[in-house]
């Protein structure tokens, strides 16, 4: 198949709209064709740039939510009078005291569900955005000709390199006897705070590990280890000793989990 035909498939591949077989075929081609690989990277960058540019572009007025809630409750509002055939007219019976108490309880429960749902969704959206930004950093690192600032497989070289650059320290695992290999690390900034990005190799796949000071917006501590799958990448995040760890890679979830286990064990030492 010619490059022109393969390029028709790149969008579907980046949108996760291909079957596993189609994805494998495209990946094989991208591995051998630098022109199409560059095109795929450019399209991925445009896709990510679009998301960042369009997200939260327009913010509702502070009182809009309240106005809508009031209009929904106000029967005289013309909007409330819009007929909807799927919603049958219902004549309410005269309510007894027990009914009223029951309905009041149900209403309170409904309000609670709405609040909890809204909070959950809001936190979830914020977390998704945070993880998406870190995923973008991982992809950009892989595309860079200088992916790390300190290149070494020796943990005793990489860890000391961060001294004086970060307001905290962390432990790196001993990787002897494991399939993982330390590639190096670099200083990164997230939400105006410095953090460490470490790069690991696993059977020619690159895995990023971000170590940041814990802050709101990433996975809440109470969730413990959380896993995600986003745009074909597996991610795992957890909080330990005031630090937030995020592992991102295109390897299997089990491989990401294995590296996470090694880091968690090192963090407990």
């Amino acid at each position: 198949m010619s490059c022109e035909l393969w390029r028709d498939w790149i969008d579907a591949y980046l949108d996760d709209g291909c079957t596993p077989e189609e994805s494998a075929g495209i990946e094989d081609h991208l591995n051998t064709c630098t022109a199409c690989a560059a095109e795929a990277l450019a399209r991925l960058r445009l896709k990510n740039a679009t998301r960042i540019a369009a997200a939260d572009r327009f913010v509702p007025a502070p009182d809009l939510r309240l106005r809508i809630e009031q209009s929904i409750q106000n029967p005289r509002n013309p909007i409330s009078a819009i007929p909807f055939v799927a919603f049958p007219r219902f004549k309410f019976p005269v309510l007894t005291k027990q009914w009223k108490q029951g309905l009041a309880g149900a209403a309170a429960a409904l309000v609670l569900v709405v609040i909890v749902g809204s909070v959950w969704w809001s936190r979830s959206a914020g977390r998704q955005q945070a993880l998406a930004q870190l995923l973008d950093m991982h992809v950009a690192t892989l595309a860079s000709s200088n992916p790390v600032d300190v290149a070494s497989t020796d943990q005793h070289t990489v860890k000391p390199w961060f001294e004086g650059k970060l307001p905290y320290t962390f432990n790196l695992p001993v990787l002897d006897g494991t399939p993982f290999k330390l590639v190096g690390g670099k200083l990164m900034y997230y939400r105006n705070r410095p953090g460490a990005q470490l790069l690991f190799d696993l059977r020619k796949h690159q895995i990023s590990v971000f170590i940041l000071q814990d802050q709101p917006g990433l996975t809440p501590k109470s969730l413990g280890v959380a896993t995600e799958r986003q745009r074909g990448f597996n991610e795992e995040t957890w909080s330990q000793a005031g630090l937030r760890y995020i592992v991102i890679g295109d390897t299997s979830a089990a491989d990401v989990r294995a590296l996470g286990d090694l880091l968690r064990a090192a963090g407990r030492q």
Partner: protein
Amino acid sequence: MPHFASLYNLAFWLTQDRATAEDLVQETYVKALKGFPSYHQGTNFRAWMYRILRNTFLTTQAGLKAAVSLDSDDVRVVEPATDQTPEVFFLTRVEQETIRRTLEKLPMHFREIILLCDLEEMNYKEVGLALSIPIGTVMSRLFRARKAMRLLLAAASQGAKA
């Protein structure tokens, strides 16, 4: 009210007007509340909400006007005189504002499908549900929308150079 900020953002992108977007979001919640029994559990709730929002918009005067170009590729740009792909030479220095302006220039049906896919990260099936179109149409429209966007970005890049 779930998805409130996200729906408002999409409504503004769709209407390009604050007051219209506010009315649209308000009417969407009213209709969603009344029509909730018709929502099928297990299907994408955001896609369902967006479909209500979009159908409501298309019944307004502004929506009818926007819908006129629904099946056309009417994006009048001069293709850049270069062999490079638009993104390669443009994204190295593209600003967020340029992308926003480019999105605003796209016809509504192109803008919304890019936003649903790239911003809302809906899969093709969910986009199809939101827009009431088959998956094949989702893919072809998305392809044309992104091509139009790349051409507009390339034209903007060449305009900036000149």
